[in-house]
């Protein structure tokens, strides 16, 4: 334990965003979401609650904005003059974008949120002191804070429901930040299984909970480094690249047949989630 440890470990601990970066080897977990397929049914959100032991905070806290949905389906009403039952809307499933140059990581005073070698933006609950600076600096506002001691004082899971909690996922106490992990517990299990069999994780071997629940198959998840993976092919077909801050689609004059983009990528967080824009005018 010395300053040397600090100086030596520093550059390894914080690696740079992926320009000429070979560190994503053998894995870089990434996602692709087809907004045209999304029906806004919220099944992904429900699956996330079940998989990741998310507290159900109730109506009152929901209306205060204290809801804990790591995966949220945003609804934007069409403004074409039609009234509610006929009014159309568009949907956007939103979760942590697992940015490569994440704005949240640099500002955490205690280093509770870090980048993993397989391209995840990790959150260490034990280390978090709850300054909420990460959330303040997150452009997508996808970090959720434990405003109350949900498991205990708020009784979000009545005693008999404790049995349905996922044993692979920590139950978080009050005062820590949490967010979508890309179902890291599944990833770690698959990675270690593959390692013990001396191979790499096969494409489709691991699914996130939201992907599994999506009836329309709008969510694709996989290893972006693997050229055979579906997610890699989709990114490639849309000419979306991880290290770019603007995509080909936006540069083509007079519109483009490409649909892939990443949200707020001009801020250069280099998100790991590609969205494919809607072809239909409205979901309804």
């Amino acid at each position, binding site marked *: 334990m010395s300053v040397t440890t600090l100086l030596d470990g520093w550059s390894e601990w914080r690696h740079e965003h992926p320009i000429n970066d070979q560190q994503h080897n053998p894995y870089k977990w990434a996602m692709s979401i087809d907004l045209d397929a999304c029906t806004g049914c919220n099944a992904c959100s429900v699956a996330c609650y079940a998989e990741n032991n998310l507290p159900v905070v109730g109506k009152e806290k929901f209306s205060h904005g204290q809801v804990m949905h790591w995966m949220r389906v945003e609804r934007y009403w069409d403004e074409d003059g039609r009234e509610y039952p006929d009014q159309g809307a568009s949907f956007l499933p939103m979760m942590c974008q697992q940015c490569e140059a994440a704005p949240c990581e*640099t500002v955490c005073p205690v280093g509770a949120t870090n980048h993993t070698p397989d391209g995840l933006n990790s959150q260490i609950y034990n280390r978090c002191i709850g*300054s909420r*600076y990460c959330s*303040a600096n997150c452009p997508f*506002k996808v970090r959720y804070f434990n405003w109350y001691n949900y498991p205990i004082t708020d009784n979000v899971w009545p005693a008999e429901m404790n049995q349905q909690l996922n044993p692979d996922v920590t139950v978080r106490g009050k005062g820590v930040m949490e967010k979508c992990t890309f179902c890291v517990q599944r990833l770690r299990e698959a990675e270690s299984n593959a390692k013990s069999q001396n191979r790499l994780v096969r494409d489709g071997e691991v699914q996130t909970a939201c992907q599994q629940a999506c009836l329309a198959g709008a969510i694709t998840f996989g290893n972006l480094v693997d050229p055979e993976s579906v997610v890699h092919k989709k990114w490639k077909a849309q000419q979306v690249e991880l290290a770019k801050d603007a995509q080909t689609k936006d540069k083509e004059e007079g519109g483009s047949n490409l649909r892939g983009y990443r949200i707020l990528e001009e801020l250069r967080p280099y998100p790991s989630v590609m969205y494919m824009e809607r072809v239909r005018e409205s979901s309804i």
Partner: protein
Amino acid sequence: MKDISEDIAWAKINKDVLASLENPRKMFWAIVLVAFAMLTVGIGCEAYQYITGMGVANMDNPHVWGLYIASFIFWIGMSHSGTLLSAILHLMHADWRKPIYRFAEAMTTFSLMTAGLFVFVHLGRAWQVYYAIPYPNERGIWPNFQSPLLWDAMAIFTYLSSSILFLYVGMIPDLAICRDNMHPGWRKKLYTALSLGWEGTDRQWRNFRVTYLTIACFLIPLAVSVHSIVASDFALSQQPGWHITSFPPYFVAGALYSGCAAIITLFIILRYVFKFEEYMTMPILKKIVRLTFAIAMVWTYLNMIEMAAVWYGHDPVAKDTLLERMFGPYAPFWWSMIFCGSILPFIMAFKRFQTNIPVMFVVSLLLNLGMWLERWMIVSPTFAHGYYPWTFDHDQWPSFVQWGMVFGSFGWFTLLFMGFCKIFPSVSMYEVKEMVYHRSLATKAAAGKLATAGKGAH
């Protein structure tokens, strides 16, 4: 009009200042009681929040920061003018500061202590706050040195410890006077211990001067850096309305501004309560008012720079955030800030108001209200109207818990300050003597009679 009469006897200075340390009147205890009640409200709110969780402050996603951070900046800012008066003006030989710097320096220390409380209050897991300190541990884990919040913690701790040292060192000769004049009791013991055997020998004075000057020089860059770093919390983030290059000087100007306004308030109170009319004279008030006016104009200028930078920067999101501040739900507070911070200070430009005590008292309080609003207007509107439209309509109004703690912090500050005024001399006796002596020298020189050499200044 002279800023201090040149024929005040030194014994009279001692007597007048020591009179402020005599047993307090009933009114003192009444005010202490009120301040304590305010503090109790704050403590109650904190206890409730600590036990229940941060949610009771009515913070939510995206409004994760609120009045705690705003008040934190406010109190840090308040601490700056003590250093301005005691260190910067000391180096510039502006000796009109002498009768008023002691309480300003005390204000610095106590407002820093108040600001520190807001850090704890703000944290979701305050009991783990030591994670933010770079202490050696067997796990080899360090805090994140990239985070401005970590720089903040270090800067504030350094500034606080240096301010306490500065306040204490500057008080040693006065503590010796107290020691020599107080009747026996716990305070006499305290003064005896704290005055470190001060006898006023030449050697002691020489060492004292060097030490004082050294700490003063050390403190000035600290004062500038501490608020620049607080500004970095915002300027180094990526959010619209925060990511602004001019923030560090803007914050420092705002800090000096609110601090000077607070000095005017306390000046008027102490002058009245302790009958310090002979020391805290009208010309001194006039000077500090003019200084405040100048700083107010610097602050106004930097505020306009910020708006111009956003406007001509052509970042649509930053522009929206600015417009939302002016015309959105925060509009009444934003315009109050502009009124209190930029328009009201023009009263200080008129000579006839510069020494009008009731007017200056009210104005100085309103200036600080404006500066508190400014901090709030920096922190909150960015959350209400940032990058992500999905969060625009979320509840943003702080609950009574947040207001209660802001309220309580004023009680805490008042308690500390009142305690200080009754235990330590709030006017620097030895420096007032110096000032009186220098004035008399100047008069004699002006009258053609050169001051006789050999008469010691102390």
